[in-house]
């Protein structure tokens, strides 16, 4: 099956000289969840806006479900759904009216539209508030409504730009439960950007890390983490262990096949190994005859954060805060003006 998204050398240069997206090439396969990860201003939204026909690329090509984004924009539009990072719901309408409008824009027959709207309102838990104006909704409710609007015409490919930014953990989980449920029942493909690594890690089949308009790496979350070199086992010897005993222990651990790297920082020993769970018993067997006792041991899988830091030189945690701040500023601006 040909990929549902095929991007070739796509570039966007804004007037004023900023190259937001610089010659990116990648593919997304039908039915998968594809994640775009990157710091603020990396070019994630710009890429999505080009793929959703909202922004004209400076150069390069892209096809969605075989349709050229420049030459066949209307065909592309009927295949995709788009939930922007802007919370684009109409405050003056009710939740149900927002969805009815969306159904109109996608030319759904009235009867079908009514049924799907009822079903989706139920699904995103907005049934009781459906006939209240969106003005009275919380941020999470608005986001759920916006996502419902994106799902209404059952797109083959759904773009979600920062779908859970600024929502509490519980709402985030709920949203992902809805979305993955739908994805499974309709075989939909999802293209998402997120600042939450745990989300990307759990949800995505493939992840692209993008920085300053360039794709740094694309792979499965598992491979990305494996590339980093395996698990981290941290060991702390019991107080009173002598220098010689410790040196001897370290030496014998380092000789083990399962250990790819060992490092001592302070009174902690860090062991890098492809498989942490199996390494721990082996390490214990090795040091038992040496009569040293261990105070604590922890096994940690390298997080996507470790990968992210290695690739972009930045912590994503700070990014979440930045992104949150800019989102709030955007919303604040809107409130002031309204």
């Amino acid at each position, binding site marked *: 099956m040909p990929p549902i998204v095929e991007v070739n050398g796509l570039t966007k240069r804004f007037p004023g000289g900023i190259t937001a997206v610089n010659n990116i090439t990648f593919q997304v396969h039908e039915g998968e969840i594809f994640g775009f990860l990157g710091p603020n201003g990396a070019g994630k939204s710009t890429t999505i806006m080009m793929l959703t026909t*909202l922004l004209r690329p400076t150069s390069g090509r892209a096809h969605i479900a075989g349709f050229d984004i420049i030459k066949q924009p209307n065909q592309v539009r009927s295949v995709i759904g*788009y939930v922007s*990072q802007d919370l684009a719901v109409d405050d003056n309408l009710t939740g149900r009216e927002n969805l009815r409008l969306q159904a*109109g*824009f996608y030319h759904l027959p009235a009867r079908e539209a009514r049924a799907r709207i009822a079903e989706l309102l139920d699904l995103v838990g907005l049934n009781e508030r459906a006939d209240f104006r969106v003005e009275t909704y919380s941020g999470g409710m608005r986001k759920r409504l916006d996502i419902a609007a994106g799902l209404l015409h059952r797109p083959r490919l759904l773009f979600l730009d920062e779908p859970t930014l600024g929502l509490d953990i519980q709402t985030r989980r709920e949203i992902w439960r809805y979305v993955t449920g739908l994805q499974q029942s309709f075989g939909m493909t999802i293209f998402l950007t997120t600042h939450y690594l745990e989300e990307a890690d759990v949800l995505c089949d493939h992840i692209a890390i993008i920085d300053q308009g360039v794709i740094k790496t694309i792979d499965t979350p598992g491979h990305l983490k494996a590339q980093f070199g395996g698990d981290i086992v941290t060991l702390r010897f019991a107080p009173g262990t002598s220098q010689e005993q410790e040196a001897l222990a370290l030496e014998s651990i380092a000789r083990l096949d399962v250990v790819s790297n060992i490092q001592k920082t302070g009174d902690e020993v860090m062991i890098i190994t492809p498989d942490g769970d199996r390494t721990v018993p082996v390490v214990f067997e090795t040091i038992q005859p040496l009569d040293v006792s261990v105070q604590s041991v922890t096994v940690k899988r390298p997080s996507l954060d470790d990968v992210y830091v290695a690739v972009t030189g930045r912590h994503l945690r700070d990014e979440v805060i930045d992104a949150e701040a800019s989102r709030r500023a955007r919303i604040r601006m*809107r409130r002031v*003006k309204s």
Partner: protein
Amino acid sequence: MNGIMLVDAYYVYWREMKRLSRQKTRIVMSVIQPVVWLVLMGNMMTGLTNNPFAARMIGADSYLDFMTPGIMIMSALFGSVFGGVSIIWDRQTGFLNKMLAAPISRTAIPLGKMAGIASQAALQVIVIGIIALLLGVEFATGPAGFLLALVIIILFSFGVSGISLSLATILKTHESLFAVMNFVTLPMMFASNAIFPKAAMPSWLELIATYNPLSHAVTPIRTLIVQGWVWDRIINGLVVMALFALVMIIVSSRQFKRSVG
């Protein structure tokens, strides 16, 4: 123009009308404003029509007869000149992108908005018509003339909101659109025959007033009220308004397509 485009425009229009129906203050104000104008101006100026010389210049026995079409057009003007704001607003909230990501005709967006603004102008004029009737202003032509007046108002509103929407695609902020449109509105108002008869104007102003599209909307309505079916005074304004609306629909949808292209 095709069927799908009209369906799309209908949904854009539907949204505009829903939004309007929720703005209670705006609805109340849009009724109060013309009432105040009618009552205030009508009373203030009745002295004028007692003076036979002035009455001849005005061309009507009562200043209210003369004034009513002016108030109608003025309300339509004020309601339409800021029509472009809604597109700027949609751009800032991201709603415009939401619409543009859907497979809808691009022309449908400005067209639906213009239709929304024109309907609003028409509703306002119906209210003014009723109030004017209560104050004794009757169409010499009877109710049919009022319907024709509504058609003229709708065409006028399409034209003016088309100007506003076209400017909105270039200016991109409320502030600059407000500034430009405010600058245009009052001169357009006073350099027309809406409030003062052309006969009372200095010749340079009279020249401007003659070509001002506003005058072309006022003259046929005034004729319908004061004189009746005097077609050679009506037809000219009707044709000019139809052209004005058509040209502005084309210009604004081109501008819009270019700005989102």
